């Protein structure tokens, strides 16, 4: 294997900076989240309660981030089927013994008044499984594609039973990101999209609330009280202005938005920090996406490369889903904003996901090479023999 050695020091330098940059961006997001959570509870008797808990989760997440990035990516690849099995069991367990919050049976009760949301962690291992499985061959064969699709639909089916429409959308997003970036055929892709469309229609007609949300989105003036949530998002954003309100006067989100510290966090943040703050949050996610795309290009392992890119894109995708719902660009789906929304499971899973991505970035597995470079000196890479 010949490598263009002229580029090596620069690549190494970039990789040295990467963990710090990623950690810095995640920390900025986490702290902004704590501030927004505090602002949504300003009129409550204990306004700091959720913000301090989230700060604690941020500390625990930082430890998990460092720890998971130090474990060699080989370990994750080797045990991916065990992780996938445990994930499926966890989703089954939540259906049987789960704790119901806001009409969704999505939490498992732990000792010490803690609740654990398995779907957040399952998302990480689901993506890892898809990346490892898809990277085994040069192109995704139709057979492999349908195994991946069946696996995805099995997980989505379990999530819909909770029912967690938001997470199901994110899981399908993960499937699309992996298959599109790994050369799935157009025919298979269209088939998957049709399956999603039919499933979506079925779900919407089975659940009145989903149908009403859709109606309210397309016709807010004719939907009456059903468009209430949408209106509150508009009013909350309007309270933000360019640079936001004073913390003492950010009252609209806390008093009118549904779940202002989780599902409506972005709108709460806009009320507090205005358009400037919202741009900063979008830039943080875009920055993570761009940084990890370049890192994926430079990664040595095929599987690691796919995981790095997919993990960053999935986080960006989920963030955009949340932001779009909160800015009335999409109908309500009930997705949290990664890193910023309140919730230990959500925050820890994001940290774990990026920790594994960093581990993949530093991987140098000879059994899983991306490509071999020629020694012509122009730095162009050539494909290895299949």
């Amino acid at each position: 294997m010949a490598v263009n050695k002229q580029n090596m020091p620069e690549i190494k330098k970039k990789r040295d900076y990467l963990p710090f940059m990623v950690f810095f961006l995640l920390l900025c997001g986490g702290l902004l989240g704590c501030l927004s959570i505090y602002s949504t509870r300003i009129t409550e008797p204990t306004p700091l309660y959720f913000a301090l808990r989230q700060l604690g989760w941020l500390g625990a997440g930082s430890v998990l981030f460092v720890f998971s990035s130090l474990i060699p990516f080989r370990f994750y690849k080797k045990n991916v089927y065990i992780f996938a099995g445990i994930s499926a069991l966890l989703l089954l367990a939540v259906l049987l013994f789960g704790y119901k919050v806001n009409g969704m049976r999505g939490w498992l009760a732990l000792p010490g008044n803690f609740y654990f949301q398995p779907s957040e962690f399952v998302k990480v291992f689901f993506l890892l499984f898809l990346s490892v499985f898809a990277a085994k061959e040069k192109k995704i064969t139709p057979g492999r594609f349908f195994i991946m699709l069946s696996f995805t639909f099995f997980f989505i089916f379990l999530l819909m039973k909770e029912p967690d429409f938001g997470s199901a959308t994110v899981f399908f997003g993960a499937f699309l990101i992996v298959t599109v970036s790994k050369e799935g055929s157009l025919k298979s892709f269209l088939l998957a999209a049709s399956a999603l469309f039919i499933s979506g229609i079925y779900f919407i007609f089975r659940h009145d609330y989903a149908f009403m949300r859709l109606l309210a989105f397309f016709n807010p003036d004719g939907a009456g009280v059903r468009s209430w949530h949408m209106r509150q998002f508009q009013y909350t954003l309007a309270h933000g202005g360019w640079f936001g309100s004073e913390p003492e006067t950010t009252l609209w989100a806390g008093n009118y938005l549904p779940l202002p510290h989780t599902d409506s966090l972005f709108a709460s943040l806009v009320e507090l920090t205005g358009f400037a703050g919202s741009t900063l949050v979008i830039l943080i996610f875009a920055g993570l996406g761009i940084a990890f795309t370049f890192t994926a290009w430079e990664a040595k392992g095929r599987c690691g490369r796919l995981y790095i890119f997919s993990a960053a894109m999935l986080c960006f995708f989920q963030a955009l889903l949340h932001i779009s719902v909160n800015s009335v660009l999409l109908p309500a789906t009930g997705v949290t904003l990664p890193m910023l929304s309140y919730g230990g499971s959500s925050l820890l899973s994001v940290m774990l996901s990026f920790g594994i991505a960093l581990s993949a970035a530093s991987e140098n597995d000879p059994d899983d090479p991306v490509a071999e470079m020629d020694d012509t000196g122009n730095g162009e890479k050539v494909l290895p023999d299949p």
Partner: protein
Amino acid sequence: MSETSFRKRSLYILSFLLFWAFLASCHVFYYSVWKKEKYLTESRKKGWKEYHIPPLRGALKDKNNAVILQTRVRYDLVVTRVHSSLEARKKRRKTLKRLYPSFLFEMPPEALKKGLKLNPEGLYYGMTLKKDLSADEVIFYAEQEKKERDFTVKMALNREVAVKNLPEKVLQKLGAVLPDENGCLRGVSGMEKEYELLLGGKGGKVAVMLDKYGFWVTETIRGTLPENGKDLILPVSIDELLQGKDFSLPDKKAGGKDNGSK
């Protein structure tokens, strides 16, 4: 998967997400900056409520500073709904005992003439259950009203005349008052009207944000206190008024004196 193909595909996905992010950012800009005023005005209309605080009206006093006539607002507990079924009446009897254990039934004379009995089952629409509630009672009953809509706190006028046998001519000269739409008492005839600026005072306002359940967000209360009306001192004594002595006040703003009440 070739390196070039992966780069190309990853760039497509990244570009798509970046475009989406740009679109979302434009939407945020639209609501938070571009159409800010429109949505702020709409939200204020729905989320804020303004209340008027009526000022205390000044009294008409004689030259010895004794009150001749004072009109003020009082608040009564009034029946708003009468149940015809026995079951509903029994239920209300229990509610009355629970909510208002100590109130007195004050039957108005016309009700007594009709021979209505002083018991909860003899209630009729508009009947006053308790007159002249204190401030604490108004708050208490207003809270109860949210649960039991059979009763309400209603504003009424209390016209206190020092001497009951004041001649009709004198009463006409002193004048009458009526509440306006904000609950402020306004003179409509006689001296009450003539010296309105002095007696009426200036109403206050309080604005408060309501939460989604309609409760006050107390941190947001803001407003102005009312300026109470001043007393008007007449150049005659009550005895002289009873004797029918005529009088006049040269200056409409003269004779004002702070009534000291808050």
